């Protein structure tokens, strides 16, 4: 807690010139897209109004409308993505929306959050905002900057170190799946991590029955989806939605997955049973979460509670691990009287603003502490990167 207060007070420095430049370039791109959209449709309208957009798409262009909302037909991303091939304008609209979101939440908004006294932005870390025990952050929420894509990485480039200093990022690799391996004691998953193999590639090889070397990117993608999805109670339907598998393929895929990873299957079953009996689930450290809805007769409530029950011990354990590491790192940094400061925690990643003379020392500290924060049956692994900003690091 004192550490989080300190991190908030530390804040991060912003490259305002870069953000300004991005805002104008995104603005220009949006104007260009606007023209494309108007040309494709044949007239001007307000793209930001979902009502006007619905009229254009469904009434004028005669595209297939989907769900109805309070104010008319839905034009949300899922609906539009399904229509992507039906009309060229859809692609432009999706792109326009994405840019508009980035501009309003980041490139325009971040500079306004700069504290006039410190010249930095001080995100607020919330310990009580999630159901699993992860931290959440707000004003700004730096945890949901898009990871992929050129623009997401460019926004990260705008988070910089003070002149002459460096940023160091230390990122746990597959921490949730390692926690799952520990909790479920699944032999196959444990072995994968002990051999230090790529977990998604290996899952793909198990499930598709081909050697690791013959796993195609498509297979690996499907395996990745299921690795992350199944422990959150993803169904065959969910997998089908998330991949381009058919329903039958998805069902088969899941059942094969469980036959290859029987420990995970029994973890899921046992956890549901335990939760129903006790009314709570807990992390490896014993931090509990009460889920009385697990015995609800309302199917939706019960299923949501079951997903929570499966998910919380895994994600909660990861959250505990990174918190332990943070507290220990903080203690050691104070002990060594270091000038380097911890500034951000985003999911499984810690960011430090580093005095160049202390780079080797902090690297060593991070390498010593983070992988040893909790003793799991599988090794914990981190990736360390250094750079002048949060976007370009190596």
């Amino acid at each position, binding site marked *: *807690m004192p550490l989080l207060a300190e991190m908030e007070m530390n804040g991060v420095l912003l490259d305002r010139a870069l953000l300004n430049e991005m805002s104008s370039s995104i603005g220009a791109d949006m104007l260009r897209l606007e023209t494309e959209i108007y040309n494709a449709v044949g007239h001007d309208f307000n793209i930001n109004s979902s009502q006007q957009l619905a009229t254009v798409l469904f009434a004028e262009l005669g595209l297939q409308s989907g769900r109805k909302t309070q104010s008319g037909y839905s034009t949300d991303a899922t609906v539009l993505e399904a229509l992507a091939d039906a009309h060229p304008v859809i692609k432009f609209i999706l792109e326009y929306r994405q840019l508009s979101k980035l501009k309003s939440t980041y490139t325009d908004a971040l500079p306004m959050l700069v504290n006039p006294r410190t010249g930095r932005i001080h995100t607020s870390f919330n*310990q009580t905002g999630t159901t699993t025990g992860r931290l959440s952050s707000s004003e700004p929420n730096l945890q949901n900057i898009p990871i992929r894509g050129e623009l997401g990485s460019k926004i990260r480039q705008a988070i910089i170190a003070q002149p002459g200093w460096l940023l160091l990022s230390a990122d746990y690799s597959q921490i949730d799946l390692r926690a799952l391996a520990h909790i479920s004691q699944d032999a196959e998953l444990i072995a994968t991590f002990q051999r230090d193999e790529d977990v998604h590639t290996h899952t793909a090889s198990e499930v598709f029955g081909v050697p690791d070397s013959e796993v195609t990117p498509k297979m690996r993608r499907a395996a990745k989806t299921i690795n992350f999805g199944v422990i959150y109670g993803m169904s065959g339907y969910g997998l089908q939605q998330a991949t381009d598998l058919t329903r039958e393929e998805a069902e088969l895929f899941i059942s094969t997955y469980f036959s290859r990873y029987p420990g995970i299957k029994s973890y899921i079953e046992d956890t549901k049973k335990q939760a129903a009996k006790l009314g709570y689930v807990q992390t490896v450290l014993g931090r509990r979460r*009460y889920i009385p*809805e*697990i015995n*609800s007769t309302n199917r939706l*409530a019960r299923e949501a509670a079951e997903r929570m029950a499966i998910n919380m011990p895994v994600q909660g354990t990861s959250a505990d691990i990174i918190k332990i590491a943070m507290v220990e790192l903080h203690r050691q940094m104070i002990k060594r009287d270091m000038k380097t400061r911890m500034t951000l925690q985003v999911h499984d990643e810690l960011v430090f603003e580093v005095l160049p003379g202390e780079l080797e020392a902090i690297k060593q500290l991070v390498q010593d502490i983070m992988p040893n924060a909790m003793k799991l049956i599988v090794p914990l692994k981190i990736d360390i990167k250094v750079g002048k900003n949060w976007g370009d690091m190596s």
Partner: protein
Amino acid sequence: MSKEKPLLILFDGNALVHRAFHALPPLTITRTGEMVNAVQGFASTLLKLLRDNKPDYWAIAFDRRAPTFRHQMFEDYKAQRPKTPQELVTQIDRVHELSEAFNLPVFEMDGYEADDIIGTLSRQASARGVDTLIVTGDNDMLQVVSPDIKVMSPRRGFADTVTYDEAAVQQKYGLSPVQLISYKALIGDASDNIPGIRGIGDKTAVKLLQQFGDLERIYSHIEEVTPERLRVLLSENREQAMRNRQLAAIVTDVPVPFNIETCTVSAYDRNKVVELFRELGFSSLLARLPNEIGAEPSAAPKSTAIKENYRVVSTSAELDDLALRLTYAGTFALSVVPGGDNAMLSSLVGIAISPAKGEAYYIPLGHETLSQVEQLPQSKVLAVLKPFIEQEKYAKIAYDAKFDIILLAQNGLKLQNVSYDNLIAAYLIGEKSLKLQSIAFNKLGIEIPSLSDLTGSGAKQTPLARFPVDRVGELACTDADVTCRLKESLE
């Protein structure tokens, strides 16, 4: 409804609970897991009506489990209905409890449905010159709509409602309220398992009724019905149609003893409702609970439920006394009053400290309005408090300590050894609402006002520094006191 005439509100208990149960997201009592979404929907609707419609009379009707005359008339009546889920049964019981606490008269009678009781009561009210608003989740009631009787139904998330008068019924169905009985007799009602006449759908039924008026007249002019196919259909199924009509018609002469005066909206036992809300975990509804029924909820901040030994520290001598007190106490709770919402940018308005249950001190630091009280210079106060705030040997109890740490740090004080944070504790034990007011209510059973009641929120917010020392002081002392008390009860 003209406001000169008195107003009676009639609740259809079963229909409302049913509707709310399916319409509202699941909500359970944290500890026990008991489902209470519909109870909350009901309580919220009741409070809203009380505030907005200011009824003179009110009552609630429930179905009984015993079979009704409809079951005797028609074996399959409601036969398709699945067994009522346990979560609905318990919620209906809860609504009974709630009605009792609100002094809301309950009507129920073996052999009749809530609909019939409501139909009867509303007719009787009309006869006495009283307007009625029926609150139900069920469109069956629409047939009793008249110039004196309206029906209100919740929509979607229950926050929104729709009210039907005669014109609205006409617009929705193309029929008058009373014609709905014949309409239902013709097309049936799947939800009650009343089969309609095969081959007659919505459009045909409406057309027939618009032409002839009602079922009796359709049959008395049966030779005028065209085409022939329809005439044959109707003739062959006459008995069924007549039986349906009887099933569909709401009875308006149930032998229920009713004296409108006994339904007068009258004083209620607020504490009983508060206790029940606490048990149900409805802390969010508390603010909407009027002090007296029939009166407006007071706009002024509630008086604290705990009147204790709270003092303002405004002289050097008092500050020295406090320092001595803290030296002996060793542990104390604190509540820091900020100038704004952002701890990084806020000034210090004051600090409240509670070394023991029921004992709290408020030290004003940045008040701009000086009512009768003097403020000591901020630098002097902070210099005296510094050792207590910074030294490890004094354990501090806080609510959202991170905020206090940051705010104090901006003023040169390093808050150390926070041994207990009620916000985190409440989160860890799975409390749903983490506001200090809610935790205090749910864990200690005391209602405390919030600083934001004073300042307002959003654009209309007035900074706390502009309020007089004694008012902010009392609230801050309450916060500190409650923070101190909560540690015991959360541990």
